[in-house]
Structure formats: structure tokens, C-alpha cells
């Protein structure tokens, strides 16, 4: 493959720098979270290092191939991801009562993470093909199918958090592309009918989650305990934090899921409000940078791809951080580039690669 020299000239060093900075702090944070853990096997922070490295390799792949070519194959990628979800349904590994993992040669892999990315580019492809023809109920049906199938597959694993996350991602893109008033009414009506219906399809433990969010005392061992301990951890960090490796909530293991869902609580406890502001500033820069790429992209698929990936990261931050400070229910959405998780790290790095892809090619005209 011949690569245009101008691509190097336009390489997005700011984006790469932000990613490395955030992932690096994340790894340091995992080191602390695992410090007082009687461990068997490789510690989380070294594993996360491997995932970041592997993610960077994947990123190189996703920014090297022109995003127009990737979007041309969007439906293929979508179908492959969907088949993996079906595989999970039949052969997936069951842990903690839900079937989310596919084990291949000893490696666990979560296809729902890949699906988030596949949905974004499938939507880009669909909007790009149908732009300017107006929306009919037919369009709506197809859109809902693209999102609906994976939504149900993931919701019945059951992983309602990830399923809802996908829905939010989808709605963000729909609003961004702009919909007619009529379609907006359809969506609103659909949502109003759908939401109470959902309540009946929820598993008991999922209803319990929502009730627990409203009243943390309901579930002393599970989510309620998680929220309380997380808030204590964050608050006790104060302005300047307790110091690296010195967070008692973390080191005494009062804080649950320190490596994954509540990794940010560990950070907030040990680095305090100052640290939180610094890290949140980096995240904010990342999002604004993504929106800047969206704004200056040279065509519609570019803008949509950049926007979709930016929203992927944004909602991840907003929901995860909202969760650890107790303004959202505990839904198991990792903090992008920060929480431990191989599948999510790879999917995010691949997404970042797409962002870079759009950024690098904004001055290059298609031949």
C-alpha cells in the first residue's frame, strides 16, 4: 500500500499525546489498586500495559487504511461483530450470572465492546448513503433494525448497561445528523411506549439495580455497598488526596471493583480534587479535540465517524464518572482508556485510530 507523504505531515500528535497520557495515568492507578492485593498470576497493571500496546498496534491499522474504505466495509464489520455476539449467546462463558465473554485460546474477549464501534460505522455508512433523501418510516425501520438486533443480543446476556449505552450513542448520532420534526415525534413516542415495556422485560436483578440506585440500603452486598464505599473513597480524598498507594479505602479493599468500574474512585481518593480536575481536564481536551476534528473533516462520512467516536468516548466518561459519584446507577461502563479491560481498550484505541484517520486526511482529496 502506498501511503501519501502528506499523511505524516498531518499526523495528529495532540490526540496521540492525550491518549498516552491518560492511559499512562490509568496504568499507574491500576498499580495502586492492585498493590495490596494478594495476587495470583500477572497483576492488572502489567496486563493493561500489554493491552495498551496491542491497542496502539490496532490504532495504526485503523488509521492507515483510508476511512472511506473502512466505511465501505461497514456492513461487513457490522455482520462480523453481530455473529460474534451470537457466538457469545451459544458458546459464551458465564461469569457472575451473565454471558458476555468469548474465550478463544485462553483469551477472554467481549464482543459487545467491538459492537459499539461497529454500530458507529454502520450508521455512518447508512446516513452517508441516504443523506438528502429525507427520512421515511422505512428509513426509520432500517435504522432501528441496525441498532435493535445488537441491543437485544446484549440486553439478554444480560448487560443492560452496555445495551443502553449503544442506544444513547445511536440517539446522539441521529440528533447530530439532524432529523425532521416528524421523525423526532416518532422517536419520542416510541421511547415513551418502549421504556415502561422494558420494565417487564428486565431481569429481577436489573430491576433491583434500579431500585437500589434510588435507595442504596436495599442491597447491602451489591450495588448499594458499591455506591456508598465509592462516595466515601472519593470524598475522603479531600482537596489534595491521601497520596499514591495511601488510599485506605482502596488498600483496605473496602472499595469494590477497583480495577474496572471504580478505578476512578481509586484515583480520586489518592489524588484528591486537584488530581480529579487535572484528569478531567485531559478528558475534556480529548472530547474537544474530537469535536474539532469533526468540525474540520472534509466530508460527511468523516464528520460522522469523528463525531460517533467522540461520543463513544464522551458518554463513557460521563456515565462512568457519574456512576462513581452516585448520580447514575451502577451499570458497568468502564472509564475510557483508564479502567482495566482488554476488549474495551482495543475497541477504544481502534476508535481513536478512526479519529486520527479523519484528522490526517482532511486536506487530502479523494482521487
Amino acid at each position, binding site marked *: 500500500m502506498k501511503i501519501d507523504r502528506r499523511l505524516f505531515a498531518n499526523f495528529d500528535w495532540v490526540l496521540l499525546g492525550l491518549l498516552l497520557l491518560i492511559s499512562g495515568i490509568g496504568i499507574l492507578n491500576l498499580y495502586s489498586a492492585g*498493590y*495490596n492485593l*494478594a*495476587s*495470583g*498470576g500477572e497483576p492488572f497493571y502489567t496486563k493493561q500495559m500489554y493491552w495498551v500496546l496491542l491497542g496502539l498496534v490496532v490504532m495504526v491499522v485503523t488509521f492507515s487504511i483510508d476511512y472511506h474504505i473502512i466505511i465501505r466495509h461497514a456492513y461487513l464489520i457490522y455482520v462480523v461483530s453481530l455473529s460474534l455476539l451470537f457466538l457469545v449467546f451459544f458458546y459464551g*462463558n*458465564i*461469569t*457472575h450470572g451473565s454471558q458476555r*465473554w468469548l*474465550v478463544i485460546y*485462553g483469551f*477472554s474477549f467481549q464482543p459487545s465492546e467491538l459492537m459499539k464501534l461497529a454500530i458507529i460505522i454502520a450508521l455512518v455508512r447508512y446516513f*452517508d448513503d441516504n*443523506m*438528502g433523501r429525507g427520512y421515511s418510516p422505512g428509513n426509520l425501520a432500517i435504522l432501528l433494525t441496525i441498532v435493535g438486533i445488537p441491543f437485544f443480543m446484549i440486553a439478554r446476556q444480560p448487560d443492560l448497561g452496555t445495551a443502553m449505552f449503544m442506544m444513547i450513542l445511536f440517539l446522539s448520532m441521529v440528533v*447530530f445528523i*439532524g432529523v425532521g420534526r416528524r421523525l423526532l415525534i416518532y422517536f419520542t413516542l416510541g421511547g415513551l411506549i418502549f421504556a415502561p415495556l422494558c420494565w417487564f422485560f428486565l431481569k429481577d436483578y436489573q430491576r433491583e439495580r434500579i431500585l437500589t440506585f434510588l435507595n442504596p440500603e436495599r442491597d*447491602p*452486598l451489591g450495588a448499594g*455497598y458499591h455506591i456508598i*464505599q465509592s*462516595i*466515601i*473513597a*472519593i*470524598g*475522603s*480524598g*479531600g*482537596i489534595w488526596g491521601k497520596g499514591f498507594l495511601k488510599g*485506605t*479505602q482502596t*488498600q*483496605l*479493599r*473496602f472499595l469494590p471493583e477497583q480495577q474496572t468500574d471504580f478505578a476512578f474512585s481509586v484515583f*480520586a481518593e489518592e489524588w*484528591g*480534587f486537584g488530581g*480529579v*480536575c487535572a484528569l*478531567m481536564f485531559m*478528558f*475534556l481536551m480529548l*472530547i*474537544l479535540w474530537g*469535536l474539532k476534528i469533526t*468540525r*474540520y473533516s*472534509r*466530508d*460527511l462520512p468523516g*464528520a460522522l465517524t469523528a463525531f460517533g467516536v467522540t461520543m463513544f468516548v*464522551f458518554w463513557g466518561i*460521563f456515565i462512568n*464518572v457519574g456512576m462513581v*459519584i452516585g*448520580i447514575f446507577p451502577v451499570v458497568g461502563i468502564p472509564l475510557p482508556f483508564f479502567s482495566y479491560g482488554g476488549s474495551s481498550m482495543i475497541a477504544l484505541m481502534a476508535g481513536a485510530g478512526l479519529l486520527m484517520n479523519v484528522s490526517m486526511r482532511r486536506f487530502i482529496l479523494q482521487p
Partner: protein
Amino acid sequence: MFGKQDRLTGYDPVRFRNKIRVIIWLVFLAFFILIARFWYLQAVRGDNLRQRSENNRIRIQEIKPLRGLIMDTHGNILVDNQSSFDISIIPEAAKDIEGVMNKLAGLCDWGPNAISRESASLKSGRPFIPVRVCKNIDRDQMAVVETNSLDLPGVVVDIVPVREYIYGEMMAHILGYVGNISGPELGRAVYSDYRSDDIVGKCGIEKYLDGYFKGKSGGEQVEVDAAGRRLNVLGGVKPSPGYNVVLNVGADLQKICWDAFQEKAGTAIVMDPRTGAVMAMVSSPSFDPNLFNRGISGDRWKKLTADPLCPLQNRAVSGQYPPGSTYKLVVAAAALEEGLITENTEIFCDGTYQMGDRTFRCWKKGGHGKVNLHRAIVESCDVYFYHLGEMLGVDKLAEYAGEFGLGYKTGIALPGEKGGLIPTKEWKRKKYGEPWQKGETTSLSIGQGFVLVTPLQLLRAYCAIANGGILYKPQLIKRIETVDRQTVRDFPPEKEGFISVSRKNIDILKYALRGAVNDPHGTGGALKRPEKDVCGKTGTAQVIRMREDTSDDVVGDIQYKFRDHALFVCFAPYKDPTIAILVIVEHGGHGGSVSAPIARRIVDGYFNLEQRRKKK
């Protein structure tokens, strides 16, 4: 270039630009909300929450479930759970580690060296992780530590459930043992939902059915004091114990087999030929699985693994032996079924057989004279079978061995089963790059040479003669059930297939096996029990080629490891057999004189038990 709408694509950057401006404001708002909340928690409520974190004594403690029990076929418990007590110290809570350790040693009458080794790891380790300083203390010591707990800050007594193998070494190979999950095991997909402090089965049934035994952990929200002692339980979820497993093995029959063996190395298996149920399985020498409970000491482990008699190996399923004369059954079945001989075919045995430039001998010096098939089996005439082997050829023999399930794993519910070896011409070409020699077929026809079988395979083959041709899967497990005796999984008899030998020929062979025990010159005369009507076959498997000048009765002069293996397979009663037994004594000498008496004790014991049970 971004100003104008692109006519071709309908791309309108201006519209997006305005939208992006709105979205940027929304993103700022979102981040502002989050930061505001952090400000509220960390600055406004910071002091309050820091206090709460310092007083935070509420944590989740996992409660491990009890591992499932194992019962024998009559409901007697074979493996139970007991409690063992450990002492740990939390360095951060103990502060003065040296002082606490000395106090502990004084209270429990330990010598100064008993716990000093761990103090190094106490000082250098992580402050909040409890360090186990003493394992497996007795109840009295535990009581002393508990009553003095106020003087012993940071000292915690852990109750650890341990497995109790009631029958010790007698059943070690069936039941296996348990231990802490190892690093490599944790990495394997089967153990994906295990954690680094879990106990897993390491071999035997414990390993094979680990997922059923495991159960589900519960947890408690407990209030602990500064030293980590529990003050209050605030709520929790009970663990659910693992499933219990019922075996087909009977503890009483197993004991009879074990006692009959008396220190000899070898194996005995008892099977029900009507179902394939394994009623007893002994492998000797054995080991005490209780030794592994709290981690076996290095010395003991070394001793077990270095023992030339391999006590850890389950000879019944992973021992591979030349079948010796017991293999003649397969040769005879093949010759009959192929129409090469009838039951009346007579061959003259003068004690030798010439194949090429090699002379093969019959075990009986001077030969048996004129023998037919019945007498050839009864008196185990080698020359008769040398001739049959020559007629059949190696590949035909292998085909029939396969019919009897030899050369394949039986699929019994135990890890580490071996498949045995049934040689063919192709096998030898691949393995050695040499063509098959005719003389090798001659050795093969009396179960010598390359052929290897596992004891379990061999017994199953004889069961197929006993039950009229059905090859059952050997079934060790009868049932898996919940604690309140609800069946989770049943293990009914599984027919693997039918051997392709006609009913008539099976009857001829079965009658000959009866003769081998009951006829005047039968090699299995030791089992002669008119009322029980035993059928059987002896076998003497040479470990090295028989030297020309040794005869069988100078066993004592030969070095142990070069002595023959003694085999005996039998079933009873002749009409509708209910029990089949295999006995192999390694390097024991002659099958008829060493293994047959052991089999006799098992047969007698079995029928006594049956009678007693009927009376009840």
C-alpha cells in the same frame, strides 16, 4: 473550502458547525456538573467523609461454600468436610509484630522456631494483607488465642474447611485429592471463573467433577474493629454448598479388595458386567489423600514422586501392561469368527513352535499333545495360539482387539486415563520405519510383544463375554445430587456397542473360561468354587523375553523388576454373571498362583456381602 455545500454529497459544513457549537456547550455543562459534584464531595463534605473512611469498618467478607460430599453406592460417606484453624497476623494492626509473635508463642506452647520464619515476610510485606503464621492449630490452642484476643492485636483465627478422606489410602486413586488452585491452572479456560484462593480437585473424581463439588460463595457485610476482628454482622447472602456425588463403588467391597492385596504392587477392579458399573477399584501402593489437605510438605511430596513404585499413579486406568495369556480370548474369538477354526479344530503341541529361525516355546515343557480349542484355553496352551496368530495375521488381530474395546480409552470419569496400544503393520512402519516381522505376530498371539492394555480395558473386554457381547462404558459415578438429595444428574448404563462375535462363539469361549477354572488341568484352579461357578483366565506377562534356561518356579531368583506380571480375569456365576474381577500383581510371577488367590478372596467376600444383604 468548508463554506459551501458540496452538491455531490449533500454535505453542509455550516449546519454542522452550528450544531457542534451547541454540543461543545453541552459538553462543558456535563463536565461542569461532574466537577461540581466532586467539589461537593471532596471539598464541602471532604472532612466528614474522611472521618467516615477512618471509621470505616464495614466490609464484605466472602463466605466460601462447603464442597460437595462423596458417598458410596450404599450411602456411606467417603469424603467429608472438617474444620481446620489457621492463625494470621495483619501487620498494620499488630504494630509491634515481634511482641505479638512472642506473646502468641508463649500462649500456645510453641518453641521459638515454630513461627519465626514468617516474621520476615510480616515486616517486608504489604501492611494490610494478613500473613498466615501458623497452619492447622488444634481446638485447644484456638480457644486460648480467642480468649486472649484483646492482648493480641492484629491476630486473626481463620476457619478453613478441609477435606476428610475417611478411607485414606484405600480409595485415594478413585477420589483423588484437593489443593489450592495453581497459577497455570488459573490461566486455563475451564477454570475461568475460579479465583486465586480457591480449592480445586487435583486428581481423581475430585478433579473430574470439580465444577459440581465447588458450590457458590456467599458473603457477609460485617463490621470489624481496627484490628480486623469481626464485631457485628449487618447482613449477607448464604453460600450454597456444592453437589454431592454418589459412586457405584461400595466401601465394603473396596475394603475387601484392598485387604486382599496386602502390600503388593498392582491393581484390582470389580465391575458389574450387566451395567458396566465399577464396584471397586484398587491401585497399590497408594497414598493418603489427607496429606494434601493443607498443602503437602516438600519432603513428603518428593518421597511420593521419587518412589519407584509410583504410588500416585492409578494403575487401573493409567497402568499399561502386556495382557499375556488373557489376550488369548481375543485371538480365539477372532479365529472362530473368521471361520479359520471350529471348536473341534485340533493342533498338536510338542512344546515348541518354529517361526523362521526362531523357536517359540509353550510354557509347558514337553507340550500338551493333541489339543482342541477348549483345552487350549483351559490349559493355556501357547503353541495352539501361535498357530492361530499365524492364520490371522497382525491386522486381523488388531481389528478384533478393537472390537473388544482394547486400544481405546474407555471414557471412565477419571482424569489421566491411558489408551493402551494395539500394534498393526502400519503402526510399526510409522513408529520404527521397519516392516512387521512374522515372529512378532507369534509373540502377539499370546499377548506379548508390543501389545499393551490398561486393566480397565481388559476387564471390560471380559465383561463383554460375560454379558453376551455388550461393551459398556465403565461407570464410576451413580448420581449427582443436591444437599437435599434431589438428583441433578443420573448416570444410567451406557452401551458403547456390541462386539461382532456371534452368540454361539461367545458361548464357546465362555464355556472354555469356565473350564479354565473348573476342569481338572485348568490354570485357574484356585478359584474352583462349585456353588459359585466362576469362569476366568490366568495370564503371565513377561517383562523381558523369557530366557531359555529359566523355568517359572524359580521366580525368587530373578531380580524384582524383571519378574513377570501376574494377571487374572474372571466373572461369576457362569449363568448370568453379576460380577467381574480383574487382578494384576506387578512382578508377582505366575497369574494362577499369585493373582488368582487374591481374586478368590474378592469373590468370596462379594458373595458373603450379597448373602448378608439379602438376609437383611
